[in-house]
């Protein structure tokens, strides 16, 4: 066969495969969005692929059934923002210490952090719960936020990033100017590392927003439920046959992440590869 023709045929087959894969990827998400705007009657009548106009009434049904979506939104948002701030600040602080200074035990600490990344949360969560309940910190957001001070994976990421951007001359210049060591970190290096900090921030935010298990173990009061916990209640009998409302509740919990993704996909894609491909 003509090599040119063969290449074109190969290309055509690949595009067909990609389109099929794309349909499989997107149809469930599209169905979720569309059904959130359709009434339960419409959903029961048949499958539709175009949005309808019942978003507000679906929302009203959710509220009437006692699902406080705004409250869940607010709770999840507070936790995600606080977790992100704590993760980004402390992991860059730790990574900076590991990159810039020489001290005894530094290598051991770094190797230890690498091992920590691999430890599953199942090994600590029950012990953590037991200990928090003794301290009276269960059902308190602090128990979800504070552990991020020691986020091993984030330190690993921050260290990889800092190694590629740190300029020793700037640190030395700062010292000559009489800046304190912490001042150099806050005022000189952190701004330089901002793109990396932002990337890490997106990942922490998404992770905290989606986290179901830890909150499900630690939080008990209904008013403090996070979005994934509210989503979990949607399976209950109260919402039986209120399909439109259920889809709306689910859609509301994924839409913010989709928006963040389309706004910052560049950071996300490069951030994933950065963790894995190291020269």
């Amino acid at each position, binding site marked *: 066969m003509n090599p040119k023709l063969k*290449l074109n045929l190969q290309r055509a087959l*690949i595009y067909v495969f*990609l389109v099929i*894969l*794309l349909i499989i*990827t*997107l149809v*469930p998400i599209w169905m979720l969005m569309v*059904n959130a705007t359709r009434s339960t009657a419409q959903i029961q009548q*048949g*499958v539709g692929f175009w949005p309808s106009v019942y978003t507000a009434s679906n929302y009203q049904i959710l509220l009437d059934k006692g699902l406080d979506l705004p409250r869940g939104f607010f709770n999840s948002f507070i936790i995600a923002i606080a977790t992100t701030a704590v993760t980004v600040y402390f*992991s860059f*602080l*730790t990574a*900076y*210490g590991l990159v*810039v*200074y*020489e*001290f005894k035990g530094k290598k051991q*600490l770094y190797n230890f952090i690498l091992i920590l990344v*691999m430890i*599953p949360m*199942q*090994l*600590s969560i*029950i*012990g*953590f*719960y*037991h*200990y928090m309940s003794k301290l009276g910190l269960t059902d308190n957001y602090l128990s979800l936020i*504070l*552990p991020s*001070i*020691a986020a091993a994976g984030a*330190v690993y990421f921050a260290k990889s990033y800092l190694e590629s951007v740190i300029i020793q001359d700037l640190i030395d210049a700062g010292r000559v100017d009489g800046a304190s*060591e*912490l001042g150099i970190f806050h005022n000189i290096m952190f701004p330089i590392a901002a793109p990396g900090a932002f990337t890490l921030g997106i990942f922490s935010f998404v992770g905290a927003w*989606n986290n*179901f*298990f830890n909150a499900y*173990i630690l939080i008990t009061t209904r008013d403090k439920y996070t979005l*994934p916990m509210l*989503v*979990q209640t*949607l399976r209950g009998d109260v919402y039986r046959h209120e399909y439109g409302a*259920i*889809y709306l509740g*689910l859609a509301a*919990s*994924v839409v913010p*992440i989709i928006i963040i993704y389309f706004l910052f996909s560049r950071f*996300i*894609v490069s951030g*994933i*590869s950065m963790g*894995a*491909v190291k*020269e």
Partner: protein
Amino acid sequence: MLRKKTFKLNYGYVFIAPFVIGFLLFGLYPVYNTLALSFTNTTMLTRKDDFVGLDNFIRLFSDKTFLTAVTNTWELWLMNFIPQLGIAMLLAVWFTNVRLKIKGVGIWRLLFFMPNLLMPAAIAALYFSLFSYYGPVNQLMVRGGVYSEAIDFIRNKEVMRGLVVFIQWWMWFGWTAIILMAAMSSISLSLYEAAVIDGARDFQVFRYVTMPLIKPVMIYILVTSLVGGMQMFDIPYLLTDGRGSPANSILTNTIMMYMRFRSNEGHIGASSAIGVMIFIMTSIVALLIFFLLRDKEPKAVKEKEI
């Protein structure tokens, strides 16, 4: 001038102090506490917390449900990991191939990765709705004449297992593809050119140039996916009734751990024992993968140099 012998503070310690303190309080102590609890019969209701030695573990090993949970976790992970790696590898090879010049690589990649970021709890509930008795899948199939009566998917063991595998695959193949692509694009083009000049065909280039060079990244993907797979919870938990139904077919390690934790009495001793077992199992296999695959690498390179 008076020279005082001052203690010179090493700022390295100042910078790492919060991490170390945070780790001791929120990382190490909870792990120690879980280990300690796993040797006791502590429950949340009663005040008892007696040391019972290995009782919890012995009970686990004689419990058929635990065996089912472990087998399920492994099967569900393996069944999604193999196609996940396969499809991701195809995508990465196509997207980085200079001869094929696939258009819009950035957009394909962007869209294929999207499911990964969505809330697993919501995704599980979504698939539950899509496959419910009156759900869209049954509607389409019955109206389309594929089958005449709606199928009760939610009570079908094979369908539910398949669905968990599918959802995990659907959420993760894009992630794997992005990492493989990054690894493949970091390979120097001159290596490919040399292989092509030597008359290597596409598959040979892949097998003898690409594969050996992306091996460290493959190990990373394998270990990360394994650690994640052994923790599988949200999807199988929320897809059915939270007990791994139908008939324990999608009961995983972590679901079982949670069920012990939330049982009537709250057996946190027994629950901890499951957590410890998950850790031991995961670490042994992860270390095995790491050493088996890593040790071979220098040898393979040497052979080729000769």
